[in-house]
């Protein structure tokens, strides 16, 4: 498919550049489009309007502000660990995006345990948040960190279980394979739409999105940074550049999870193969490598719109409600979904 022979160093360089763009572009778009503008509109105000046309340069102003700030570390903090924590959180985002396919050839890595890797790597950020809370030497940070650990572990389970339904249906853990299965698939012999798993795995999709919302600690699941109780949770002692990294990681992870959700449930970068008469991955035209990322970006925007809409609409859960919701509602529902999927898979 790729006729040009790209040397290894150039490939690596392209991957690094592509990874950075794939992490920062969604983060920036989400922050400006949803956090600044949509949230303001939902509260009947205009949001930033001064920096650039319609405040579009506001993001640069914010980043500049954070870069100028003094780098404060608490006296009793465990300094090395304290400095490491935001980086660990951000690194988990970069590791996550590595597994997302953006086109027939436009991917960073393509291996068979993709889904497994994604689920494993996404829990590294829990570690970062926990040590951020612990090393700050601040009771609010510690409480926030512990809450985050409890919440992220509780909601990891329904997420894993929700993804299992997709894996059972696709018969593969390869992300690229899941995309192909959806686009080459058919619904009872009709292949005009492929077979996006949001239709057959709708329960799984809902459980996955709720679990993602909790994993991202977005409202209504923002117990770890509940500002009215814990100042700012595990981020209390962070300022300036380190806070900026936490901030970027939060929204970049939202974008990456939306990308993953669109791969798992919405058909990823592909269009239904029947539209162009493609039979397999080998028939897919090269222009999909350009169109694919755009399709992914659009799907990412739709899904993050849903996340942010929920975030701006609902008040926060109480800690016990949050845990009860994960263990007593989401996990049983996800388990039931797996059972039904497995039975139907064998039956058909």
């Amino acid at each position, binding site marked *: 498919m790729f006729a040009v022979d790209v040397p290894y160093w150039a490939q690596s360089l392209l991957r690094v550049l592509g990874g950075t763009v794939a992490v920062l572009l969604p983060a920036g778009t989400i922050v400006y489009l949803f956090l600044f503008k*949509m949230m303001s*509109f*939902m509260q*009947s*105000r205009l949001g930033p309007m001064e920096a650039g046309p319609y405040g579009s340069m506001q993001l640069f102003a914010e980043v500049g502000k954070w870069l100028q700030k003094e780098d404060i570390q608490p006296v009793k903090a465990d300094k090395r660990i304290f400095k490491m924590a935001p980086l660990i959180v951000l690194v988990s985002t970069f590791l996550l995006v590595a597994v997302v396919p953006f086109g027939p050839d436009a991917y960073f890595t393509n291996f068979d345990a993709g889904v497994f890797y994604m689920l494993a790597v996404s829990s590294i950020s829990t570690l970062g948040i926990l040590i951020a809370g612990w090393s700050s030497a601040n009771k609010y940070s510690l409480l926030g960190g512990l809450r985050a650990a409890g919440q992220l572990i509780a909601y990891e389970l329904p997420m894993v279980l929700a993804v299992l339904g997709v894996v059972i249906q696709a018969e593969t853990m390869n992300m690229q394979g899941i995309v192909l299965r959806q686009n080459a698939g058919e619904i009872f012999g009709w292949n005009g739409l492929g077979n996006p798993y949001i239709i057959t795995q709708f329960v799984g999709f809902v459980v996955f999105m709720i679990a993602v919302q909790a994993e991202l600690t977005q409202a209504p699941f923002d117990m770890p940074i509940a500002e009215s109780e814990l100042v700012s949770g595990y981020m209390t002692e962070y300022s300036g550049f380190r806070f900026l990294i936490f901030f970027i990681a939060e929204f970049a992870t939202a974008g990456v999870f939306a990308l993953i959700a669109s791969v798992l449930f919405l058909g990823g970068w592909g269009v239904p193969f029947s539209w162009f008469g493609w039979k397999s991955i080998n028939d897919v035209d090269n222009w999909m490598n350009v169109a694919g990322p755009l399709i992914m970006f659009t799907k990412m925007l739709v899904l993050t719109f849903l996340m942010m*809409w*929920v975030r701006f*609409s*609902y008040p926060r859960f109480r800690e016990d409600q949050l845990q009860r919701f994960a263990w007593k509602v989401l996990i049983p529902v996800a388990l039931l979904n797996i059972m039904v999927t497995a039975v139907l898979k064998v039956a058909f």
Partner: protein
Amino acid sequence: MADKRQVVGLAKGLGVGLGVTLKTLGHTMKPKKLGGGANTVQYPHEKEAPPIRSRGVIALREDNCTSCMLCSRSCPDWCIYIEAHKTLAPPRRAGGAPRKVNIVDRFDIDYALCMYCGICVEVCPFDALFWSPEYEYSEPKIADLLHDKTKLGEWMETVPEAPELEAGADKKGKK
């Protein structure tokens, strides 16, 4: 486990919540011409008309002031400074004795101290003090917030006409 009615009610409530935010989103994004737009104004570029009788700043009508010192003495913060001298004015009627009047030399209000209680406006027996809705008078230096009678007199122009009294009210309204 919650019963079925509760679950339905919960789902409905969640839906209504999403609806409210989406409706506000749509209303704010609708162009102003079609009756949409935000509830806020872009302050330095456009100004919101302050409500009538809003307590922005206290204005002085110097001609009415007799420097009786009632306002200065009733001020809880002691932020009104008055100095005056007596002089003779021509009599009102021909052949009468010349009148003794007080001329205000200094009438300063220190807005760094003023707490906007409005007691001075209430207590003034000669209708010399008024509430003005003017609010843009911040200063870089706190000492500059001491405003003299010229400045207080300029603010008189921003004082709105007093609204019509209610039917049957005592006709002792100001201005």
